[in-house]
């Protein structure tokens, strides 16, 4: 009997593809007997085109149906199959069969009764010589794999026959089988629907074959199967659909007793796979991964429906499927091929930093020597103190202090930790056997580390070694940096060192997820170390987002780790009405004279004139202010000259950074939030100046790299003057005439420290007479304060808690002739020792307060005088016993909230960390814009490092180190991350000044060279 073939065509949009598809159907040499067109949300065009062909049935639905549902809707209008030979031909608007396709397919069905489903060879719509798909199979573990994907059709697969599954477009399926199998599984709307159909057909005893002679051009427009374009959004959707389909199939195919186990494994698997996705730099897929797991887990009855359908039609065992699965050796072979391909891509893409070739090694060596010369007296000491430095706690306590929970400072309270403590914990873990030692290392390595950061940041802007060296030198000898080192301000030092690296990472973020994640971690660390930079950096980030085009995807997450770390603190500070206190510098508040605007403009954050006042007064009759100013001018002029360089945007961004940093510094001098006794310490202006200096450095790099002759001389001159400018400051450091000092390992008398060995919670009430005649009374536990105990939440609180007031009452009465029971100090706070620190200076009020307290404490029968110590006069409570209950840290102080906050923070930081591990070489799509040959045009020929390896033949692989994104943190919006087809070159706005004589030395430039 003559088989009846009904073509079911699913149409979304009209247009060229549809008309070609309709033409192709009409042009078949064996035309279908009937044509059912299913219009799903079709436009008027499509309707008109469909009406013109005169289909047997037109089914129209207003809702958006999946291909399977649409076919089902079309099939519903058909009569029951008259015979076993009747078949359905499933087509989509974008699948145009060759004229002989149907004949070939039908012939297969007719010759082999066992074949229930026959599929064509799908070829690319625009490039019919390439195979888009030829069957689909799955691995032993059920992973769906194409048998052939994206291969040039040279007839190499024309012998294929039996397969496990197919792509949905163009398949011919026996109508009876279709009904028996209940069509496509509605739980698999886009991906693996035809694979699943094939599997079920196979289990029902049928065969599924491909017919390579039947060719169907297929455009993957998203009607049948997922849309195949390369946009990030489609890719993420595809990945999610594929994962959801895989999970659904797993639950549908698994033996019944393992289904609950599989169900339970879905979420843990999603977590593991997310880790892997981070490592392979595909963070965008992670939400889909979880969404797929969750929708599959809570998909209601879909799994049971699929299982029922499968069971009802099944006639053979799974062994019928096994031979058609992809064999393990084939899986392995494909994996190896992918790795090879990745390696190949990565090789052409390594950043040509030319570290040694452009003198980076010499810069590092020089910085190391300078650091040793400055801090020679620090070498060999086990700790460092003075200024804002205190020892660090032991390893475990250090990490405990980094988490939300008990803040062991003063009377103690439960609250958020400063994010800076997290930075300290990371640092302290480097020398976990003695965390305090890391501070010595930090001070010794700060200079080289900062120099390298600036060197690498500059390497994104220029290839000339001398200019990179200039950036490193100017940045390493920046006055705010040396001041922070001299005044022992750990936060400011960390911020300065990391700012250069942050710039480097953010430049790279335009093209790489790993760099973006590194940048986000550095961003968090910089803001943790210098919260006053947060407003400026957030403004810079928003500007960067605005101007970076497609790269904004990777920049968008930049502040996430910083936000997650700081959020508990933000909530608490805002909650108690002191949002300005968020700007407080972490660590010990260190006061000092307030600098004038002039001093700030010279980069001097601590008043004074960089040591020139003392030096100049003795030597020559010159105003030290003039000397200090003149020595900064070369750098400033070099930076301002950046507006002359081609590429005004970079210059503006760099100079904008200067303005932001300077504004931060000026504002910092007007904000005083940290409270030390009767004094309020202003925010350290040096952090803002560091940011300004970064802008100056980068602007100078931009302007000098635009100079074609004599740039080495200019760099040398600017660097030399910058070094001369800080000579007095450096000398002061080198002779250790600064607050920084080799460690006092302790801040309490040895007697107390000895007691702390056996009683770690021994509590000392420290009384410090103040210049207004008042008394600062604080509690210290164990062997004294540590840097990680410090909490800005405590320092900036303008309200006293009940415990604080009680402590004040106890201390005030101890310092007076009083009827109050002195044992209250032991009872309420576990105080074992009272330390009366000597009054600072010759302040009469303070001396009187000291004398008063001394008399009162001396005359107190509850106290036993221990004697005079280096830290003041010490008394001991006769009744105090070791491990006073009142001195203990309450158990589980943070509670569930602390655990929750810590968990979230750890997850976010770990995720950023995983993403930042540079495993993405070759995995990430190459998002770099091909060299425009502009920003570095002069470099190739004259720079110390001729661009070796840049004149590779593949334009896609041209490495770009020089004309990278703009200055920190605003990368140029130049890159098109995901798609090369849609890339739109960003035109330079500056006119090219003069014709370049040496363009011949340039690497091959792709066609977007501004047309000039």
């Amino acid at each position, binding site marked *: 009997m003559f088989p009846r073939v009904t073509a079911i065509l699913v149409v979304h949009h009209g247009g060229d593809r549809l008309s070609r598809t309709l033409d192709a159907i009409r042009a078949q040499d064996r035309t279908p007997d009937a044509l059912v067109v299913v219009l799903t949300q079709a436009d008027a065009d499509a309707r008109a085109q469909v009406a013109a062909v005169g289909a047997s049935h037109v089914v129209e639905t207003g809702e958006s149906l999946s291909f399977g549902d649409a076919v089902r809707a079309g099939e519903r209008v058909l009569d029951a199959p008259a015979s076993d030979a009747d078949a359905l031909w499933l087509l989509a608007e974008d699948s145009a069969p060759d004229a002989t396709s149907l004949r070939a397919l039908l012939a297969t069905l007719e010759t082999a009764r066992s074949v229930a489903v026959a599929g064509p060879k799908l070829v690319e719509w625009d490039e019919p010589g390439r195979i888009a798909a030829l069957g689909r199979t799955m691995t032993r573990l059920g992973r769906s794999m194409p048998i052939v994907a994206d291969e040039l059709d040279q007839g190499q697969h024309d012998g294929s026959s039996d397969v496990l599954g197919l792509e949905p477009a163009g398949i011919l399926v026996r109508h009876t089988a279709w009904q028996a199998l209940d069509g496509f599984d509605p739980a698999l709307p886009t991906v693996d629907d035809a694979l699943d159909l094939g599997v079920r057909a196979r289990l029902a005893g049928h065969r599924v074959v491909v017919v390579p002679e039947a060719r169907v051009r297929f455009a993957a427009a998203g009607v049948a199967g997922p849309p195949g374009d390369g946009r990030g959004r489609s890719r993420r959707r595809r990945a999610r659909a594929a994962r959801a389909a895989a999970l659904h199939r797993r639950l549908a195919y698994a033996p019944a007793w393992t289904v609950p186990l599989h169900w339970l494994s879905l979420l843990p698997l999603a977590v593991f796979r997310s880790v892997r996705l981070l490592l392979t730099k595909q963070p965008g897929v992670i939400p889909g991964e979880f969404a797929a797991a969750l929708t599959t887990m809570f998909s209601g009855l879909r799994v049971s429906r699929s299982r029922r359908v499968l069971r009802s039609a099944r006639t053979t065992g799974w062994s019928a499927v096994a031979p058609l699965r992809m064999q393990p050796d084939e899986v392995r072979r494909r994996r190896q091929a992918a790795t090879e391909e990745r390696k190949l891509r990565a090789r052409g893409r390594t950043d040509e930093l030319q570290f040694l070739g452009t003198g980076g090694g010499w810069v590092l060596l020089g910085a190391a020597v300078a650091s040793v010369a400055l801090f020679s007296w620090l070498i060999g000491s086990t700790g460092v103190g003075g200024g804002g430095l205190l020892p660090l706690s032991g390893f475990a306590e250090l990490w405990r202090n980094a988490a939300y929970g008990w803040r062991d400072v003063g009377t103690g309270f439960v609250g958020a930790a400063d994010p800076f403590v997290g930075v300290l914990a990371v640092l302290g873990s480097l020398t976990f056997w003695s965390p305090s030692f890391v501070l010595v290392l930090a001070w010794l390595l700060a200079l080289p580390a900062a120099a390298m950061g600036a060197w690498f940041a500059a390497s994104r802007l220029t290839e000339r070694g001398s200019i990179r060296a200039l950036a490193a030198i100017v940045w390493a000898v920046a006055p705010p940096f040396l001041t922070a080192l001299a005044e022992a301000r750990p936060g400011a030092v960390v911020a300065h060192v990391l700012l250069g690296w942050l710039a480097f990472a953010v430049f790279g973020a335009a093209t790489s997820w790993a760099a973006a994640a590194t940048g986000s971690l550095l961003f968090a660390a910089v803001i943790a170390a210098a919260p006053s930079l947060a407003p400026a950096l957030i403004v810079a980030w928003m500007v960067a987002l605005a101007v970076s085009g497609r790269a904004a995807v990777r920049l968008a997450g930049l502040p996430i780790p910083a936000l997650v770390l700081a959020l508990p603190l933000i909530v608490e500070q805002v909650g108690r009405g002191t949002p300005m206190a968020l700007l407080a510098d972490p660590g010990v508040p260190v006061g000092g004279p307030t600098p004038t*605007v002039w001093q700030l403009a010279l980069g001097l954050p601590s008043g004074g004139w960089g040591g020139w006042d003392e030096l100049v007064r003795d030597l020559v009759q010159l105003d030290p202010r003039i000397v200090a100013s003149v020595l900064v001018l070369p750098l400033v002029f070099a930076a301002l000259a950046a507006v002359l360089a081609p590429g005004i945007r970079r210059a503006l961004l760099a100079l904008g950074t200067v303005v932001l940093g300077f504004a931060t510094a000026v*504002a910092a001098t007007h904000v005083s939030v*940290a409270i030390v006794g*009767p004094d309020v310490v202003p925010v350290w202006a040096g952090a803002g100046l560091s940011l300004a200096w970064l802008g100056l450095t980068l602007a100078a790099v931009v302007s000098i790299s635009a100079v074609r002759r004599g740039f080495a001389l200019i760099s040398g001159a600017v660097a030399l003057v910058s070094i001369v400018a800080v000579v007095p400051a450096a000398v002061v450091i080198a002779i250790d005439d600064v607050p920084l000092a080799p460690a006092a390992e302790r801040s309490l008398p040895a007697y107390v420290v000895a007691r702390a060995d056996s009683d770690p919670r021994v509590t000392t009430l420290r009384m410090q007479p103040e210049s207004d005649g008042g008394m600062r009374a604080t509690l210290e536990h164990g062997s004294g304060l540590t840097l990680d105990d410090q909490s800005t939440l405590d320092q900036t609180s303008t309200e006293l808690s009940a415990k604080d007031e009680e402590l004040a*009452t106890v201390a005030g009465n101890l310092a007076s002739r009083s009827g*109050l029971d002195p044992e209250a100090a032991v009872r309420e706070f576990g105080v074992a020792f009272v330390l009366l620190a000597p009054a600072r200076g010759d302040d009469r009020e303070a001396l009187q307060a000291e004398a*008063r307290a001394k*008399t009162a404490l*001396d005359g107190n029968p509850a106290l036993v005088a221990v004697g005079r110590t280096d830290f003041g006069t010490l008394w001991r409570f006769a009744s105090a016993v070791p491990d006073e209950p009142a001195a203990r840290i309450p158990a589980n102080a943070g509670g569930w909230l602390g655990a929750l906050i810590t968990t979230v923070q750890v997850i976010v930081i770990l995720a950023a960390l995983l993403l930042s591990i540079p495993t993405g070489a070759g995995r990430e799509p190459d998002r770099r814009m091909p060299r425009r040959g502009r920003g570095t045009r002069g470099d190739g020929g004259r720079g110390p490092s001729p661009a070796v390896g840049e004149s590779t033949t593949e334009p896609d692989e041209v490495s770009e180190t020089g004309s990278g994104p703009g200055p920190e943190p605003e990368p140029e919006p130049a890159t098109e991350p995901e798609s090369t087809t849609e890339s739109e070159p960003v035109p330079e706005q500056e006119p090219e000044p003069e014709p370049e004589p040496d363009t011949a030395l340039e690497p091959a430039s792709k066609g977007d060279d501004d047309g000039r």
Partner: protein
Amino acid sequence: MAADRRALIRGGLRALGFVGASALAVGLLAAAAAVTWPDYRAEPPSVVVQPAESRQQRVCPGPLLTLGADAAAATTVTSVGPADLVTAAEPADAVLEQVPLEAPGNAGGAADGTPIAIAAEPGGVDAGMLAGAQSQAVASETLRGFAATACAEAVAESWLVAGATNLGRSGLILLANPSPVAATVDVRVFGEAGAVEAPSALGIIVPAGTQRVLSLAGLAPNLVSPVVHVTSTGGAIAASLEHSVVIGLAPAGIELTGVTAAPATSQVIPGVPVPQSGGVEATEDHADGDDHPAVRLFAPGGDAAEVSIGVVAESGVGGGTIETTLPPGQVLDVPLGTLDAGTYTIRIESDAPVVAAARTTVGGAQGQTDAAAPSDLAWTVATAPLLDSAVVAVPPGPSPTLHLVNSGGSAAEVTVTGAGGERVVSVPAAGAASVAIDGDRVVLAGTQGLHASVSFIGADELASMAVQPPGPLDSPLQVYPR
């Protein structure tokens, strides 16, 4: 040509851009400097702690003592009769307790009494509203004269500016420890030649509730102008110094001096009684003896001090200013010049902290013969400014007079309530006033910042007694718990 012009224009634009950027930078700097940006300043939290009420206490030094009255025990001290003790408190009906201290060094303690600690119940009186004073007139072969002393708080550091140990003069340092813990006391003596080495005076233990007596001559013999610095750790000490004079064979006066005000660049000695006109010019190099009004000065800082001494009569007439330089580390006695009889206020301004007290005598004439020897002497010490109210105990003595000195810039109205009722005394700005006292208790109100003393002037008796504010130990204290 066109290319040249374009290059020119381009160059010009670039220069303009550079100038513009520089101008912008300068403008930004100027804006940052010129604009007064608002300040954000957190307010440091603090608690003013009012010490819980405790027992207020004053220590009276006890009867006058003499050294070596018993030839068999020349180094022991013996009391010469009992002293008259009066106490005063506001409110008047406050319950006061008198606790006698041990005086193991005094052989006559059993008969003549011992030092007394006066104490009020906790909360019984406000700070400073408890006073005690003692007076005693003696006339023996070796001692003659009248001494009046206010009972004092025990403190950790005291300066005694009085005494002499040259021929005929003797001095005793009385250290009373009323507190419940033993005190370790360091006594340092400075003289006209500088600090006196006296290791035996360091680390003296004064047991709780006990008075110890040291001979000043034993520590620092043959000093004309001693200044004694007493510091204690452990218990607090109420220190006083007994200064007696014998000229030839005749006793020529006695005084029991309390603690003078702590070192400061500005000192006020109120109510220095000068019963007879006369004196020695300040420029006199050899102003020997002690029968002329003089002021004793010492700068503990160890540096030379430029000192200006203003001597103003209470009536406002007479007096003058003496400029002098204190040699570093040395004590200087400065004669106050020829003064008319009356009461004087001495104001001392110095460029370094100094301690000061003034000495005056009564009776006798010029000259150094036995017959012409003065019959009594008095040390008037510098006082600290009073609080708003004070209570003064006035012991028996000849014509007690309260002197009030106002060193402030505006006149003060002081309410003086004595046995005779309430009087309002006006003390002019930068001036002084005096009030004759009847009765043994005077309550002062409106005395904020004023200095006060009580003088006793008889024909051959002279004494002066400071009215000191309470020590800082009871005053409120500002505590910063951060």
